């Protein structure tokens, strides 16, 4: 099955995704993004099976989740994805590791490599850290978020969610609102959604908008009402409490007044607009429960569901070479 040519591109095997690692969306061509989305879509049905959600294709492979920054949801999602594919999944938390004892990132990478991991999933608080490790190890590396740089599986799972809800991407207006400056989710989503043909608007307080943002081929806004006007998707980002202590923003209540997504505000978007959030949510600040919990509008739980499917697809695709899949050697 995997050696068959892709119906869209006519590409066979590794030509569909010729990358050793998944470090960011920036390195991916649009057809490669669509390939991963198609692969992920196939896992959704399995994940919805009532009884045994298991596929043994990664049996015997060791997956190390090396998380140098705290995470609950993403770590769990990668762990479940690996286990559903039959991999031996091991989690390394920085809080428990020798990183705290001063070991360098390179030494940690060499150590993980010496343990013969078959795939490594990394989250780190510094932009570029995952690439640094990827250059030092012999197995595929998946970026689970590095600093403000990229969080590619989040970009992919958001795209998959939008595709399922909206049927496609071309011409869709997607408004991403929140702390764009410090957000790897925003960066991966801007890259992913513009590559797929969406019209992306980004909205942030002027203190949290990155310089030269228009170079992403997105339209920047500081006025949330204007940014929402006629949108098909409202994607809200989490705002960290520390940003609202006066350095970037005067207060959480003022942030909510200007940028909080309320049922009233959502009326500016298209009547069938969906609401997204990568979680965890600050209810009452960037989003009100009346929006987040509205089953007709909110796609937030579906995002979590698609997260597992996307991570299964990425783990599968990146290990095909090692597993000797025809056309992927």
């Amino acid at each position, binding site marked *: 099955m995997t050696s068959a040519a892709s119906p869209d591109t006519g590409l066979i095997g590794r030509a569909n995704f010729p990358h050793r690692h998944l470090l960011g969306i*920036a390195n991916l061509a649009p057809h490669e993004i669509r390939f991963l989305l198609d692969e992920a879509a196939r896992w959704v049905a399995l994940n919805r099976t009532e009884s045994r959600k298991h596929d043994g294709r990664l049996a015997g492979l060791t997956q190390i989740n090396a998380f140098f920054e705290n995470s609950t949801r993403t770590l769990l999602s990668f762990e479940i994805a690996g286990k559903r594919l039959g991999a031996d999944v091991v989690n390394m938390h920085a809080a428990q590791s020798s990183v705290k004892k001063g070991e*360098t*990132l*390179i030494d940690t990478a060499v150590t993980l490599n010496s343990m013969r991991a078959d795939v490594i999933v990394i989250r*780190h608080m*510094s*932009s*570029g*850290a995952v*690439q*640094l490790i990827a250059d030092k190890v012999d197995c595929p590396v998946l970026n689970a978020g*590095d*600093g*403000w*740089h*990229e969080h590619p599986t989040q970009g992919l799972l958001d795209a998959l969610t939008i595709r399922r809800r909206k049927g496609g991407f071309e011409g869709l207006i997607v408004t991403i609102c929140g702390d764009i400056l410090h957000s*790897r989710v925003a*960066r991966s989503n801007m890259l992913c959604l513009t590559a797929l043909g969406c019209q992306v608007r980004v909205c942030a307080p002027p203190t949290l908008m*990155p*310089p*030269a*943002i228009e*170079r992403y081929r997105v339209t920047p806004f500081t006025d949330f009402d204007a940014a929402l006007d006629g949108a098909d998707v409202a994607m809200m980002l989490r705002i960290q409490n520390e940003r609202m202590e006066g350095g970037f923003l005067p207060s959480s209540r003022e942030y909510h007044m200007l940028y909080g997504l309320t049922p009233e505000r959502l009326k500016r978007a298209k009547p069938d607009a969906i609401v997204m959030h990568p979680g965890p949510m600050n209810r009452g600040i960037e989003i009100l429960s009346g929006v987040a919990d509205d089953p007709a509008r909110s796609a937030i739980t579906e995002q979590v569901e698609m997260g597992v499917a996307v991570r299964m697809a990425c783990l599968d695709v990146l290990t095909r070479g090692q597993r000797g899949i025809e056309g992927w050697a």
Partner: protein
Amino acid sequence: MIAIVNARLCDPAADALADGALLVEGETIAAIGAVDIPADAERIDARGMILAPGIVDLGVFKTDKPAFHFSGITRAALMPDQTPVLDHPGLVQHAARAGKPDFWVHPLGAATRGLDGTELAEMAMMKAAGARAIATGRRWIADSGVMLHVLRYAAALDLTVVTHSEDGGLTHHAVATDGETATRLGLPSAPACAETIAIARDIALAREAGARLHVRLVTTAAGFDLIRAAKAEGLPVTCGVSPAYLFLNDQAVSDFRTFARLSPPLRDERDRLAAIAAVADGTADVLCSGHDPRGPEDKRLPFADAAPGIAGAETLLPLALNLVREGHIGETRMMALLAANPARLLGLDAGRLAVGAPADLILIDPDAPWIVDSDKMAAAAGNTPFDKLPVQGRARMIMKGGVVR
């Protein structure tokens, strides 16, 4: 007695190269030009070479003789950013002795204790111990009141104050210049006007204090405009630039290349072109390497965690020669930037090609081709952003105090 014959003489005070010979007697230059060579003189044939005063590198972070010799650097002003900080006469004296006799280190004393920007360091005692100027290090004195006191105190001691011009409030944790590259990489960045603000403040304070100000690295168009205006006003304000800012822009940090992490950070293309223009029109006074060799412990880290700085000494001369080859400056102006001007700022009797001047001389082979290779540097570490770049030019002979080294 040593006679250097068949050389092209590069006198920084002249308009152009001149053919001729040079006679060294003892530690000084005895004759220049159409010289009668005594029969007993040792002859050095310098055919095809440029004979120039030794390079005076204003603002290095490490004494690294093999790298300095490669480029013809005979003296270097050492930044106070050492461990421990050069804020004490004993430390200054120790640093000043480090290179002799074949190489001279001229320490720059810290302006404030520990470079912390709060309490004045013992400038007079450091001067007595060998400090040639006062420097703020790679740091920003945030308190303008403290900076004014530094400038006034240094002026009374006839010491130039060498500054690093980045407003710390803006740069804070920044490791790059605001722009597309920083945003795409997700790096903390600051606007280039951090430099404008810092230079404007320091010029205003230097005017108030009647002090000599040398901005070690100017890297932006707006920064050079301020220096230009200060010079037009007649203020004793000078500035330097290093080749990295002349030949690289902020795109060099793409792919998280920590070897291109500098302080100040690389700027955009417009600022790069403005820096070249400032070298060509005389706004820039000094060309320096900012030599700061850093091993993998400091550089093989995530970009924002890596130390700033490049091993710049070996590439200083060939990249300066690039400016000549590209027609921005002539050879004599190049040596003014590399030797005469920094020597004058530091109050050194050096950087001259004149009878009676110390025989600190170099022979430059201006066309010698080589390829920069970070794995094979003479420097203590190979952190160069110019890795694999084909260049031309290196020093073939170094004479310090009349002795070939």
